[in-house]
């Protein structure tokens, strides 16, 4: 790794903090450990990290408040860490601007994959990793933003206007869980009681056209009750 990413780890549980730091350092990242809310806030502003891993249950404050403060300041990626969260907690954290969440207990491989994915997306957004000509690729799926066309391998997949818009929006947020309400707002601009059903039907068609089989690795992951991740 040419330039080390700096990652701020805010976690009150000492063992978990050490574990995460050790895992990150083993993968060549630089870590800044913080043990609570105030400590984390101070280190965030003094170290300017590239990524924050934030535990929501902190002894001296609510992690979501810290997330709000970080979002007021910058768009740097934040992965939220928490013991078994309800769907509503996850939606809240994502809508507050968290890029991803990991529930405890987590496997080290999963956490590292999330970290890589979030940093990749961040690089894409800052323009450093953007593919030429506005093309998105994921495995053998290609989206040509200019021509509004989608391919798997060489063959073109025919999508409706709305289906394409949804897929292209998800691909632009690749690596991040996009909540239902965020997609609805982006595609239809308004939200009523029927719009979530409209979204679900469109997603079912997209999955069918992309040849998704339940339980097998797909281009789009389902986060039940929350949203989708591409």
């Amino acid at each position, binding site marked *: 790794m040419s330039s080390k990413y700096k990652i701020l780890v805010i976690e009150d549980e000492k063992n978990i903090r050490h574990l995460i730091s050790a895992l990150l350092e083993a993968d060549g990242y630089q870590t800044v450990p913080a043990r609570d809310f105030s400590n984390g806030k101070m280190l965030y502003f003094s170290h300017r990290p590239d990524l924050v891993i934030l535990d929501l249950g902190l002894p001296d404050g609510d992690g979501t408040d810290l997330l709000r403060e970080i979002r007021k300041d910058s768009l740097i990626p934040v992965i939220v860490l928490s013991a*078994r969260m*309800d*769907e*509503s907690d996850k939606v809240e954290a994502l809508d507050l601007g968290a890029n991803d969440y990991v529930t405890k*207990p987590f496997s080290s491989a999963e956490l590292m994959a999330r970290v890589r994915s979030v940093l990749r997306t961040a690089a894409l957004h800052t323009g450093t990793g953007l593919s030429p000509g506005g093309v998105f690729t994921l495995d053998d799926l290609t989206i040509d933003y200019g021509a509004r066309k989608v391919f798997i391998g060489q063959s073109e997949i025919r999508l409706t206007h709305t289906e394409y818009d949804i897929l292209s929006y998800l691909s632009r947020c690749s690596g991040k869980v996009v909540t239902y309400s965020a997609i609805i707002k982006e595609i239809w601009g308004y939200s009523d009681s*029927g719009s*979530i*059903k*409209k979204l*679900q*039907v469109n*997603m*079912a068609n997209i*999955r069918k056209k992309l040849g*998704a*089989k*339940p*339980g097998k*690795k*797909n281009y789009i*992951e*389902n*986060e*039940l*009750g929350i949203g989708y991740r591409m």
Partner: protein
Amino acid sequence: MKKIPRLLTDAAITVALLTACFVLCLLIQTVSGAHALIPAVFILGAFLTALSTDGYICGMISALASVFLFEFVFELPYFRLNFTVTDNLVTSVIMIVIACITCTLTTKIKKQEALKSQSEMEKMRADLLRAVSHDLRTPLTTIYGASSALLENGSGLSGVQKQKMLQSIREDAAWLTRMVENLLSITRVDGANVRIIKTSTVLDEFLDAALIRFHKRCPEQEVAVDLPDEFITIQMDALLIEQVVINILENAVCHAEGMTILCLKVSVLPGKAVFEISDNGCGIAKEKLRNLFTGYYQAENLPSDNKRSNAGIGLSVCAAIIRAHGGTITAENRKNGGAVFRFILDTEEAPDEQ
């Protein structure tokens, strides 16, 4: 607030039963003149009142009123109270005594029944706790023992041994995680205020998420999936139903010996979705089949070897979750070997527009 309606309904029941007895007695008197039946009818009335109301007071009032009515209407001299006749006095006293005793007995029986169901609940809880603490201790012992061995005499162990110990630590920690998830689910669906949150969930999105989670836990186990083509949504607490599917699949992996095929099939009936998870393993022993979903753990059923069976808890969690969703769950053995678990949930109406 709750006390007043109860009192009112009790009073209504008392009055209704008394009136019924009275009318019946009038009929008997006018039609057949079988006079001896009348006290028996009134005693029956008082007994029924005690049985169907909150107990004592209504039963007693009913008994006294019965005696009064009996003496007043049906005994000579008609429409006058006359306790100077020895016969009348004796019948009245006997009626009151019998009525009092029946009232007391019915209230006692009711109390005992309430106590019994309460103690049964407590027994179930105690059984569950006993099973859980037994099941928790085993993996904790492994984790504690293996990690201390690695820390204290790590240098004396071979690489293979270390690897094995680390592996068992991970396996047992994963197992503990599952157990804790199940217990959390129980606390959500058990008890008076069920905390399930139903949302409209698309069937294939749901199964995709559930199967991916299952594959993370059991990467070696393939699942053959058979789904209907239609677009189906179900009102469910997806996290909990996901746990049901995973528990049943894992149950097959742990207990269906000799299994080569594990199937998950969903079929659609009008307004219902039938989930069927079947295997071609050794099937379920008959005596286990009966108590499969009750979580009943008898001491002799506890595994004596190293193989632990969290099936009791896992499947009772499944049953509680499905029940809380208003669905049904069953298990049976297949004719040509293996077991099949089936649960049924209501589907939502199909959306009218695309």
